[in-house]
C-alpha cells in the first residue's frame, strides 16, 4: 500500500466502521482473478432483459424522457403496480398515496428501516438471509436479531421461533420468502401463523417479496394480503428478478399512507426519484411481460431439478428449493468449512459457489449455488463438483 498521510481523527463513523466487510466481496476478489470459472455464484437472472422492455427504455430516451419524475414515481407506473398487486397478490393499495417507486428493493428496504427505526429498536430477521439485512439495520442504529431457520424445516420460518425471539424492544420483522440464499418458501398456513404472532406482539412486518414470481409449486402467499395485516406491513417488491431487470435498479415499497409518507420523506431528500427511463421500462414489463416471467420460470425449474439432483448424487444433501434460483446444499459431510469448501472448489475445479457463512452464521456448513446461469454451466459445474468431492475422499 502506498503510504497515506494519517489524519489525527478517524473520520469514519463508528457504526459504519463496525460493519464487517461483506463475505461475498472477499470471495469475489478471488474469483475475479481467475479464468475459465463456471460460476454458480451469481445472484441475478441469467437472462438479459427481454427485448421489448429494453426497447421501451430506448423509446423513452428517443422521446426525451430524461427528467425527474414525481418523488412517488410516475403515476401510470404506480397505477400499473397496484393493478398487478391486486390481481396477483390479492392486496389493494392506493396508487396516489400508498406506493413509492424506488431504486431497487435495496433502497426500498433502506428507506423503510430509516422511516421506522428509533435508535436501539430491535428488528428481527430470519437467517441465513440476504447479506444486507443486518448491516442495513445497523446503519439506522437498530439492533438486528437473527432467528435461525433450519434445513429439517426446509429453511421456512416458524411462528413458534418468532414468538421465542420477540422481546419488548422488538419493533419489526423482516421477511424474505422465497428466500435468498435458501430458496425457502412459506405455505399459506405458515404465513397465517406468522401473521398471528405479529399481531399478538404488535410487530410491523417488512416483507421483501422480490422472488415471489419464482415460486415453483403452489401459490405464493403474501402476508400483506391477510386480514388485519396491510396496516402493519411494508410490502417491498421490484422488477429485478421476475423480469431480469437488475441493472435498471427499479423497485417499490407499498404501505398504508402514514408509513408511505414517512418513507417518502427519506426518499425525497436522499434519492429524489428513480430513473425515469427505468420507470418507463418497468411499465412496459408490467403491461406486456407476464409471458416472459412464465418462460424464465420454466427454464429455472429445469435447471433447479438438474442441479439439485446432481448435488444429491454427488453426496451433498440438498433439499428441493421451492422458490428463487438458489440451491443450498449441505457440505457438512466433507468435513470442510463452507469457506474452505468454496475456496478449494474454486482453486481445484474452477467452480464458484458462495460460502454459506456469507449469509450469517446459520449458513455455515452450506454453500449457495445459483442455478440462474445457462444449462451448459449447470452441466459443467455438476461434473467438476463431482470430481472435487471424489478427490476429497
Amino acid at each position, binding site marked *: 500500500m502506498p503510504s497515506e498521510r494519517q489524519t489525527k481523527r478517524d473520520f469514519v463513523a463508528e457504526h459504519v466502521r463496525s460493519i464487517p466487510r461483506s463475505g*461475498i466481496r472477499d470471495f469475489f476478489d478471488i*474469483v475475479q482473478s481467475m479464468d475459465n470459472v463456471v460460476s454458480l455464484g451469481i*445472484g*441475478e437472472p441469467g437472462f*438479459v432483459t427481454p427485448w421489448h422492455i429494453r426497447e421501451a427504455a430506448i423509446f423513452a430516451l428517443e422521446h426525451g424522457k430524461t427528467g425527474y419524475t414525481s418523488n412517488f414515481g410516475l403515476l401510470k407506473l404506480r397505477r400499473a403496480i397496484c393493478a398487478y398487486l391486486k390481481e396477483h397478490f390479492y392486496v389493494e393499495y392506493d396508487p396516489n398515496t400508498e406506493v413509492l417507486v424506488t431504486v431497487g428493493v435495496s433502497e426500498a428496504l433502506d428507506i423503510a428501516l430509516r422511516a421506522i427505526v428509533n435508535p436501539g429498536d430491535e428488528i428481527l430477521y430470519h437467517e441465513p438471509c440476504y447479506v444486507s439485512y443486518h448491516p442495513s439495520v445497523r446503519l439506522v442504529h437498530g439492533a438486528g436479531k437473527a432467528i435461525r431457520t433450519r434445513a429439517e424445516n426446509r429453511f421456512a420460518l416458524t411462528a413458534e421461533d418468532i414468538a421465542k425471539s420477540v422481546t419488548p424492544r422488538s419493533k419489526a420483522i423482516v421477511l424474505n420468502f422465497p428466500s435468498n440464499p435458501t430458496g425457502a418458501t412459506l405455505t399459506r398456513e405458515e404465513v397465517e401463523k406468522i401473521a398471528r404472532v405479529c399481531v399478538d406482539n404488535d410487530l410491523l412486518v417488512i416483507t421483501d417479496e422480490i422472488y415471489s414470481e419464482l415460486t415453483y409449486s403452489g401459490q405464493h402467499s403474501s402476508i400483506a394480503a391477510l386480514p388485519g395485516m396491510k396496516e402493519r406491513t411494508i410490502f417491498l417488491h421490484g422488477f429485478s428478478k421476475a423480469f431480469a431487470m437488475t441493472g435498471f435498479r427499479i423497485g417499490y415499497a407499498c404501505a398504508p399512507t402514514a408509513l408511505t409518507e414517512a418513507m417518502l420523506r427519506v426518499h425525497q431528500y436522499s434519492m429524489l426519484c428513480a430513473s425515469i427511463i427505468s420507470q418507463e421500462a418497468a411499465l412496459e414489463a408490467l403491461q406486456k411481460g407476464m409471458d416472459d416471467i412464465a418462460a424464465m420460470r420454466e427454464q429455472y425449474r429445469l435447471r433447479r*431439478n438438474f442441479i439439485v439432483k446432481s448435488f444429491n448424487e454427488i453426496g451433498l444433501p440438498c433439499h428441493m428449493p421451492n422458490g428463487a434460483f438458489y440451491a443450498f446444499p449441505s457440505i457438512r459431510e466433507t468435513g470442510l468449512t463452507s469457506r474452505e469448501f468454496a475456496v478449494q472448489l474454486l482453486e481445484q475445479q474452477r467452480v464458484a459457489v458462495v460460502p454459506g457463512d456469507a449469509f450469517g452464521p446459520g449458513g455455515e456448513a452450506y454453500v449457495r449455488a445459483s442455478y440462474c446461469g445457462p*444449462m451448459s454451466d449447470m452441466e459443467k459445474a455438476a461434473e467438476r463438483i463431482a470430481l472435487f468431492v471424489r478427490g476429497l475422499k
Partner: protein
Amino acid sequence: MDPLLKLLEEHALRTPVDLSKMLNLPADEVQRRIKQYEDDKIILGYKAVINDDKVDTDLVKAVIEVKIQPEREGGFDRVAKRIARFDEVTSLFLMSGGYDLLIFVEGHSLRQVAQFVAEKLATLDGVTSTGTHFMLKTYKEQGVMMDGPEEYERLKISP
C-alpha cells in the same frame, strides 16, 4: 406440450440422463417417450442449424409466393403436395392473404432456382402466378441468432 419435446426442440443432443434430471423423470421413461414420439411421427427428425455464411457454400435461397387455382375436390392439397416433392423445396405453407402458397427453395445457383421456377413450378397445372424473392442475408434462423447468442456481462459473484 410435453416439456420433453420443448427441450429437444431447443437442443436435440441432450442425453436422456440429463433430460431425466431436468424433468425429474427416470431415464428409461425419457427414452421410452422419445421412441414413442419418433414412432408416432411427432418427432420427424433431428437437424443442426448451420450458419451458411460461414461455410464455403454457394447455396442460393429464395421464397416464392404462388397463386393456384383450387380444385373442386381436394382444394389446394393435390397441387401443394406435388410441389412439396421437389428436392429444391425445403418448406411449403398454405397462406391466407394475397397468395396461396409460400415456398422456401434452395439451389446451388441462381440458375438452378430460376429453372425450377420457370420449368417446374410455373408450368404446373393449377399454378396461375409466381413471385420469387431471393434471400440476401440471414440474421436469424429457426430461433437462433446467426452471430450467436447475445453476449452480456454478469458479475461472477453477486449477493
